[in-house]
């Protein structure tokens, strides 16, 4: 009875985002048959989307073990899974929803055995039998009670023992709303981040909205295609932020709009923008939150730069665009709010360009502004300088107010 009911539920899936798969996974988020969970504790299937660095394998195994039984892993991508049976993998071009449903049903009925743990079944440090009660600790703060040390104040406290502790831990690479692949060592005091260090860099962004821009390098491309890709890219960024502030339905609406833009449908962004404004999105992004200095904005380029008030856009120099009276839109404040407004403005402008010149073509090799923080000399500014002093929810808002290319450049590939 319970099995039969459970088998018909949306499949609870936790997504471990590897390389290259972000837009495809967003398709899953829109599907009512899939329930993308916020934590592996609520999932039955661990979906590994795309390629995972070798050095991230241990993280992936830990994540796997955190799923409650019955559990299974599903690989979605081309690079892995030669040793994996058919039931647990899908090629990157396939839609895995049906396969996930079948796997889940079999998992529930017992036809597919629940996977056993991958990491060793032993505590992080041996502790049994030590200490007064065999709990592994000594004195007030010493030892490894139950296998782990206790958090300690940052500096030895010789006075009154009232110094508050800090809590240091690595976070990532598969944290929700966290740049895929990024592992930071974060030091908290309470819920405020004191410091952060990059342990593993983010995966380089690689998404479908890049295709027309790559195309443009060697072939004449329709302006409509370029601008649609821009709108879709920005809508996906907006969707992430909407979901983070507790508006999941609006977020899915933005996702659906992005998908429809990519499918060459005509859409209007204004209703979404109005709904977002009415829901108090502005209040959720405090003025000044995530403000970056001018130098960083310039170095990152793209929409981040224009949100800082610099009207620099390669499209201004392109004859196809100048014929359409193109002028770059920009904001002035350079904070989270400004970057969000910039995404909305640019997406709306892109669609306006499409409807103004549906047939315009752009010569190949033309220098056209990409929708993200584009290629530029390496920068020495780190995401780790952005986070200290921020409360956790604010820190995530700041992270998600940048596109993934900008984040990738701020958390460089070579760990510092």
């Amino acid at each position, binding site marked *: 009875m319970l099995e039969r009911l459970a088998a018909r539920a949306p499949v609870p899936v936790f997504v471990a985002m590897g390389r290259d798969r972000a837009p495809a996974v967003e398709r899953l988020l829109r599907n009512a048959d899939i329930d993308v969970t916020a934590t592996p504790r609520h999932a039955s299937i661990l979906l590994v989307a795309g390629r995972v660095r070798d050095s991230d394998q241990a993280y992936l195994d830990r994540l796997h073990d955190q799923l409650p039984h019955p559990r299974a892993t599903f690989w979605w991508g081309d690079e892995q899974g030669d040793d994996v049976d058919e039931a647990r993998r899908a090629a990157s071009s396939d839609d895995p929803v049906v396969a996930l449903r079948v796997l889940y049903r079999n998992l529930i009925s017992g036809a597919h055995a629940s996977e056993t743990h991958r990491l060793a079944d032993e505590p992080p440090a041996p502790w049994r039998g030590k*200490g*007064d*009660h065999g*709990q592994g*600790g*000594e*004195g*007030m*703060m*010493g*030892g490894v*009670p*139950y296998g782990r040390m*206790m958090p300690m104040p940052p*500096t030895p*406290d*010789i*006075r*009154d*023992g*009232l*110094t*508050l502790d800090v809590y240091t831990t690595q976070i990532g690479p598969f944290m929700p709303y966290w740049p895929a692949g990024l592992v930071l060592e974060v030091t908290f*005091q309470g819920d*405020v981040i*004191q*410091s952060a260090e990059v342990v593993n860099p983010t995966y380089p962004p690689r998404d479908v909205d890049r295709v027309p821009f790559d195309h443009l390098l060697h072939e004449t491309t329709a302006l409509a295609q370029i601008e649609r890709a821009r709108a879709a890219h920005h809508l996906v960024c907006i969707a992430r932020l909407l979901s983070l502030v507790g508006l999941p339905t609006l977020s899915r609406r933005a996702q659906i709009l992005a998908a429809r833009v990519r499918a060459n449908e005509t859409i209007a962004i204004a209703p979404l923008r109005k709904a977002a404004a009415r829901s108090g999105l502005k209040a959720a992004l405090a003025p000044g939150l995530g403000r970056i200095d001018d130098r960083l904005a310039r170095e990152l380029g793209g929409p981040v730069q224009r949100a800082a008030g610099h009207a620099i856009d390669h499209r201004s120099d392109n004859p196809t665009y100048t014929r359409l009276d193109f002028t770059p839109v920009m904001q002035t404040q350079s904070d989270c709010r400004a970057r969000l407004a910039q995404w909305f403005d640019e997406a709306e402008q892109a669609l306006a360009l499409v409807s103004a010149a549906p047939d315009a073509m752009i010569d190949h090799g033309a220098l056209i502004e990409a929708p993200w923080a584009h290629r530029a000399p390496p920068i020495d500014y780190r995401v780790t300088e952005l986070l*200290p*002093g921020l409360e956790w929810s604010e820190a995530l808002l700041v992270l998600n107010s940048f596109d993934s290319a900008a984040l990738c450049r701020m958390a460089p590939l070579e760990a510092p």
Partner: protein
Amino acid sequence: MSVVDDMAFWIFALTAIVSGWRVFCTDSMVRASFLLLASFIAVGLIMLLLGAPYLGIATIFMMGVEMMVMALFMVMYMMNPAGLNPMVMVHQHRFSIGAGIAAFVGLAAVMLVTDFADNPVASDARVVTDLGKELLGDSMLIFETAGVTLLATMVASVILSSRSGRFGPADEGSVPPPLEPGGQPAGRLPEEGGGHGHHHH
């Protein structure tokens, strides 16, 4: 009905005493706070049995928030707040055992010896109304004094505890005292904290 009432009384009384005792046996600050809360809830329920519904439930209400805040502060100030390493929560064992027994015997004796007034309140007595009348009648002055006192409490607690303020951080320029007279300042200086203060008071 009266048998049921008696049983309820004994159960609540036992709960109050046992959870009150357990407060001193647990290693976890959070558990200690909420065991104390459990004790107070049992006392509040006894007050309910005694026909003092407002006082009983107000006790539960107030103790709920107060123990919550106490737990926050206990965790902020105590090492090993969850008691992962066992520790002894009581000091001066012999003296406290003696004091505890003496207090218990004394209070029990008072209870047994005193000749309590024997005029039960009618079950339909409007005790809350009477309380309100009292507060706006003879006890008005007390009520008002309490109000102003509580305002003073609010202001004082903010002055003492708040780091931020209109004149900038409260610990700006402060130096921890030395461990010996005339020595160097000991411990952490506030400037080291990356702008996040600690409050010793």
